[in-house]
């Protein structure tokens, strides 16, 4: 029990670091970069619940981020309900959609599941593109007045940041609790050998669906916060396939199926990208360079940062998770 707790506390510590430094230094620039980092962390942890624990690689996971963004946006836009309520409703709705979709696509395995999730993302993107009340291809734009009820844009940006911080903590703790519960054990059994798990009496279908729902809930909330903060939403930015693949990368980079892994993966990925984007020497070729770095990671550190540390440093072998 102790070794696992160490990783959780370390992960919590890291997340708190990202929440507290902008707060204490009252630095908007730190807040903005921490916002991106925290967003990646939360998305990576959510995906890890499905991909790492259950072994189902969703290539279109960003669809829940987009759905959450649209629901939050539409609720605030048309019904002017409170942000908190809208976020929770968005999460629940996304989870329900996941349950519905999951009941069919979770029958697919491996690459077929991956392709199906890409298909879902593209289908929903195209649908939203044609839905007038969601603004279609133009998307929706907030009136600045919306921020007034949250104390003006400046406060709204801070508020979004704190909300994201809380969500990140919650998703981390939930991922920890799942991993160390009977439910988590069942998920890992599915990941190792689904047929065997089924024969051993695991209700694989139910377990998979619940994991899918949980891993859909949080990206939806994060999406809601992200688009609230951005003040506008459109299908292209809500359902971007690139972000989906980025999520997978972060999980892989950190260590698939671990607690601390997605956190480290997200931070590393984000920092690499941020550095490349603003560096004079690399900013023109940053896409190529990040491609090369990612390829090197896949080839030479396939077990991710956590696995690498476990292998190289004996002391950490039993502590890190």
């Amino acid at each position, binding site marked *: 029990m102790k070794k696992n707790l160490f990783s959780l506390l370390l992960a919590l510590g890291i997340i708190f670091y990202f929440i507290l430094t902008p707060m204490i230094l009252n630095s908007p620039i730190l807040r903005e970069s921490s916002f991106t980092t925290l967003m990646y962390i939360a998305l990576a942890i959510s995906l890890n619940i499905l991909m790492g624990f259950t072994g189902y*690689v969703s*290539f279109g996971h960003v669809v829940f981020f987009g759905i959450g963004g649209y629901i939050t946006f539409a609720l605030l836009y048309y019904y002017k309900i409170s942000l908190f309520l809208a976020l929770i409703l968005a999460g629940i709705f996304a989870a329900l959609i996941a349950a519905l979709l999951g009941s*069919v*696509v979770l*029958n*697919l395995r*491996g*690459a*077929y599941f*991956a*392709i*199906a999730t*890409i*298909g*879902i993302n*593209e*289908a929903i*993107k*195209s*649908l939203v*593109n*044609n839905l007038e009340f969601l603004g279609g*291809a133009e998307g929706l734009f907030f009136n600045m007045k919306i921020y007034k009820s949250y104390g003006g844009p400046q406060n709204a940006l801070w508020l979004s940041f704190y909300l994201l911080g809380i969500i990140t903590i919650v998703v981390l703790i939930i991922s920890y609790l799942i991993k160390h519960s009977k439910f988590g054990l069942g998920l890992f059994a599915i990941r190792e050998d689904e047929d065997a798990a089924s024969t051993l009496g695991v209700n694989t279908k139910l377990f998979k669906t619940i994991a899918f729902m949980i891993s859909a809930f949080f990206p939806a909330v994060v999406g809601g916060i992200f688009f609230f903060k951005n003040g506008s939403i459109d299908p292209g930015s809500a359902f971007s396939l690139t972000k989906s*693949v980025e999520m*997978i*990368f972060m999980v*892989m980079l950190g260590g698939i199926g671990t607690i601390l892994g997605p956190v480290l993966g997200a931070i590393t990925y984000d920092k690499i990208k941020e550095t490349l984007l603003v560096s004079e020497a690399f900013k*023109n*070729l*940053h*896409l*190529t*360079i*990040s*491609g*090369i770095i*990612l*390829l090197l990671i*896949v*080839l030479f550190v*396939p077990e991710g940062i956590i696995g690498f540390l476990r292998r190289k440093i004996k002391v950490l072998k039993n502590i890190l998770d």
Partner: protein
Amino acid sequence: MNVYIDTFINGILIGLIYGLAAMGLALIWGVLKVINLSHGAFITLGMFLSYLIFKYFHIPPYISVFFTLIIGFILGFLAYFISLHKIVSHAKNFKEYELSSLLSTFSLSLIITGFLLFIFATTPMAINLPLSLFETKLLASFFSIIFTIALTLFLYKTYMGKAIRAVSQNIDAAKLMGVNTTLILAISFAIGISLAMAAGNLIAMVFPFSTLSGILYELKSFVICVLGGLGNPVGTIVGGIILGLLENFFGLFVNQGLVPFIEFTILILLLIFKPNGLFGGSK
């Protein structure tokens, strides 16, 4: 001419072109069990190669395609050893490298796309031959059929082709029979890339394109592979034709903007009910 006949002919022609674009993806998917996420990037690379050859040497795409095939083969061969060999050779079975191969081929696509964006940005490009759209489509479709026949003959009639099929069916058995599986996998990947680039080379003469066009064909190729199965090139072409007809006839009755929605819904339904392709057995 009657609108329906028009639509039908166009659907077939477009379908043949889509099939051509998907052929490389299907081959690699079928043999290596790798979903090549750099497929679109290589199609784009083929388009730009075609454009540059036309611009600087005035060689039209229907001739430069043979050159592109060779370049594509070499690049594909290199790409296999750079991005896939280490993952594939260390795995006990394809399930083990399924995920990492998705990621390594995606990195490859980032590298290529980043490079193309650096040079060409997203400036739209077009190769303008003194031919009408219909004529260029016919020409590309003709190549599509030729490639299908050539690839089928290669796979079923030559020793190398038989070895590729053997590897795709059971890699361990093939290895025991003395087949150099690494070489076969590398060659299959190289042929797949070569076909992708050749498809790009030909599509460039039909439609205008930019650095980001490849991804559209990549997504369509997924649908086609699922429609036509991975077994043989003829299946892929038929999958392409079905997609082309569907797109064109749907476009006639519903708003064009909804076509992708219908397309991907079909993809999901097919995956669920007919995962081995329309012509494969049920699962």
